[in-house]
């Protein structure tokens, strides 16, 4: 097992079915440390289902998911988070009724040890821990550029800031692997580019491995080390961005058979 310890994530034969529909079928995926890996595919390709399998919301019917060499499928989401996988959501899910700082502090939950009794007595350990969590949350807010709105209600933030808050909250869980579900959804090209730059920075500065979901493949090409393409729950291609980009199956999946022919014709003309 020693070699697979070096892998951050190793999924083999992961299958998830909903009734007769196979949302993810027999998917293999390997993520190396410090990589930015992407899962792309058209809408409904099973990308988010795959994410939910990793983060514990779904239990795959078949296959195995190993994180740092240990199987994690079937564990509850909180246990998986405690092991070092954090995620964000395609539709932003912040805790309504809590402030920005509190939202991030919830992320520190697994790293804190206080119990109600300790809380009541406010033991020195407890107070220190609470202060440390607060300072840490504030530092993370500073990192994503939200340190001036810490006392706002999270749901009052504008859309782009909510996205960054979600990332800060995920970072507060002290993850090894960060799962980002369509982080650029609803952004304009300029914002998208900034976000991608930010993701790269996260990887470099925070010592993270990142798994990214995107349906727009042009977005991830620039920064991904490894791209996996899904269509109808099946992996149709994987490899470096350049390899995937030229795979006819991928082009067909995105543009349909007719579109792929057109593109091929265009390419010929161009050549």
């Amino acid at each position, binding site marked *: 097992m020693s070699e697979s310890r070096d892998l951050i994530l190793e999924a083999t034969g992961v299958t998830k079915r909903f009734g007769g529909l196979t949302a993810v079928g027999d998917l293999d995926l390997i993520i190396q440390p410090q990589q930015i890996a992407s899962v792309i595919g058209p809408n409904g390709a099973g990308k988010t289902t795959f994410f939910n399998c990793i983060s514990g919301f779904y239990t795959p019917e078949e296959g195995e998911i190993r994180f740092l060499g240990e199987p994690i499928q079937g564990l509850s*989401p*909180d246990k998986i988070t405690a092991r070092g996988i954090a995620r964000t959501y395609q539709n932003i899910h912040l805790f*309504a009724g809590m402030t920005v700082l509190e939202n991030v502090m919830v992320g520190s*939950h697994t790293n*804190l040890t206080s119990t*109600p009794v300790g809380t009541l007595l406010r033991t020195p350990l407890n107070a220190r821990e609470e202060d440390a969590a607060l*300072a840490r*949350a504030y*530092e993370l807010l500073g990192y994503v550029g939200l340190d001036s709105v810490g006392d706002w209600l999270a749901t009052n933030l504008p859309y782009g800031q909510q996205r960054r808050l979600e990332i800060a*909250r995920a970072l507060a869980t002290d993850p090894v692997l960060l799962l980002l579900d369509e982080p650029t959804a609803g952004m304009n090209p300029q914002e998208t580019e900034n976000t991608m730059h930010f993701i790269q920075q996260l990887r470099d500065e925070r010592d993270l491995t990142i798994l990214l979901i995107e349906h727009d493949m042009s977005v991830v090409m620039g920064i991904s080390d490894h791209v996996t393409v899904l269509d109808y729950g099946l992996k149709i291609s994987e490899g470096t961005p350049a390899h995937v980009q030229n795979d006819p199956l991928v082009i067909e999946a995105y543009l349909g058979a007719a579109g792929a022919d057109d593109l091929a014709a265009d390419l010929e003309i161009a050549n």
Partner: protein
Amino acid sequence: MMTRLQNLYDPVREGVSFGFISGLVVLFLLLAGIPVNLANIGLLLVFVTMFVAGMQFTRRHFGSRGIAFLARNALALGVVAAVLVYLFLALLNRWQMEGIDVRKEYLKGVDHRQTMTVLSGVPVEELRANPAKDPYTGDYPEDAELRTDPMRLTFDRETGLVLKFGLSSKAWLEANLGIGGVYGFLLVLVITALLGAMLTWAAMRVEVGRRRAAFRDRFAGHPVLHWVAMVLPLLFFALLWLTTGHGGNDPVLRFAEENRELQPLLMFGIILFGLIAIRAAEPREWPLPYPARVGIVCGGLVVLALLAVWRITDNEVYLIPTSSDPAGSAGLTTLALLVVVGVLIVQNIQALQDPTRFEWQFAATLSGMLVLLLPLYLDQYGNDILIKVGIYVMMGLGLNIVVGYAGLLDLGYVAFFALGAYSYAFLSSNQQDTESGVASGLKFPGNDEAVIRIAGWLTIALVVTLAVVIAGLYLWRRWQVSRSVATTRQALIIVPQRPSGRVTMLLIVIAISVSALIGAVLDSTEAFQDVFGNASPFLVGLVGGVIAAGLSGIALGVPVLRLRGDYLAIVTLGFGEIIRLLFLNLRDYTGGPEGVLEIPRPVPADAAGQPVSYLVIAYLVLIGAALIAFFSMRLKTSRTGRAWSAMKSDEDIAQSMGVHLVQSKLLAFSIGASFAGIAGVIYAAYQRNIFPENFSLAVSINVLSLVIIGGMGSIPGVIMGAIVLIGMPEVLRELETYRVMALGALLVAMVIVRPEGILPEPPTQLEDKARSLALPSTKPPAERAEESAV
């Protein structure tokens, strides 16, 4: 959500809603049970006008900010009402002078002999005995309606002019506060106006950023306000103290002296004003020197302590009984009081070193002391209400944890209250079987033995558990440290991780078995009897009740873990009923519908003097509620509280952030339940007899309503909710049969006008603290600036 919150903190809305609510209160006070006659129609018109005027006034003038805005809000209803009241009196008297006999109109159809206040000075009995003394005898028919007069008009006997009227001239108000008639009426108005000001003040406090900055800019040049605000209450205290009993000549002071019982209220008003002024002067910008801060807070404390001593010696009410003096010892009581004040002073001297804490400290200490004084100033009836409200505050705070913090709708909350009450009843009731004269049922034989045994076993378990936990954690940590060298992944925050579930289970098993062993060995020994023979049944009952309620909270929690919303509500509803029906039907054990009787008071019965045991319960309630509020407050801003809050917002996402749902839910249920258990034990000790029908569904619904009306998740809100929902029916008692209707309408109005509750929880303010704690930034600011442009 966003628009809702913006609306929530809109001062205009605050003002209007407040005016609307108080207007409705007054209208209902007026409408119920008043005969339609000239005077009453006039009065109704006055109030409608007042209501509309107050609303217009607040609406028009609430654009500006600062202290003027607050003062206007507070004065809006008070001033307008006062002016209109006197206009109304003038109108009545003008009619009187023009030959319309207002008295006759007013008294038409009312047997005014029932009303002591209508006629000046002649008591009812005297009137009955000697009808000649009544100028209007025979003016009303024999079958005239017999009822109290809600308007309380008071006429001058000579001229027939209307002197005063008031809606709140309850006998006890007059007797205890020395006020009635127009004063009582004005007092009610002033209190509601102050409440309005407090509401807006609270609303302004949470308006972060822009508004606060503007506010500060405007008053930045007025540190003098600050000083005035500080000196004013002190001046008042000093003058009051110097002149009370020394025959001052000033009419204001004479008034104060004649109405000594009004002093706490006056002080409260002045303190409130002081706080508003301090806020205006921003203590951060203009900090008072340290000695002044200490002087002000401690001076206030000393004055309050002196008031208490005076009150205690005046009324010969002593809290702490001794064997030689069962009615209570003056010396001991005073000593206890001085100790409390001393501790507070020492605590304040430390806390006040931070100038920004001054305001908070000042408010907290002084209002805490005022609340502690309250039972001394109330009579038995007042204390009854206080105890009732306090018990509901405790339950409300408990349910607030389950519903307000964790978002789990619990409609069977009364079950835990019942368990607490019955636990104490079982352990302590002195009930005897009337026929045989022997103690009967479970409550009964070997009662004291059970108390002694439980006290002993609990103590042993506590000591052993502490020892096992401390030793176990120490060993575990040593083991952990020696292992951690091999750890590859660095922890986010350098604190020891908690032991794993298996280690915890092991520790628990060890603790239980060791304490069971020691308990079994010691159980029958002489020493055991000697040590625990004098255990107080109340304390044992309290511990037992809390444990019983807490465990049953977990028992309820386990089956409903997967349920949400409506389904959860239905199951908990069933749970509440099951517990009540068990108590009702297990006749052999619980006494069935005949209940459990003769439950002793916390202080043994031989401490004679009813008021003493009353005060003991009142103080128990106050202390219990304060402790529960304190615990709730700490929980709210802790890891546990955040987990609950996250869970309330979205269970799945909370779980994916690492929150253990099962643990969090069970914790919420058991903590909430144990608070109800405390309330139940005190309730049983207070009522002395409990029956299954004391624990009907209505109690659950009442508690839930007070949480919703007060403001879910907000501690001041729950307290306010309990005061309104439990206290208001007592205030509305004058309305007799219409009471329930008026209360219902009031609640409906409140829910429509303020769906968020009376005092909703403002967002926590942590950023300043975070900034002061912040670790050195990991990146140069230039890069950060770039990122924030993302």
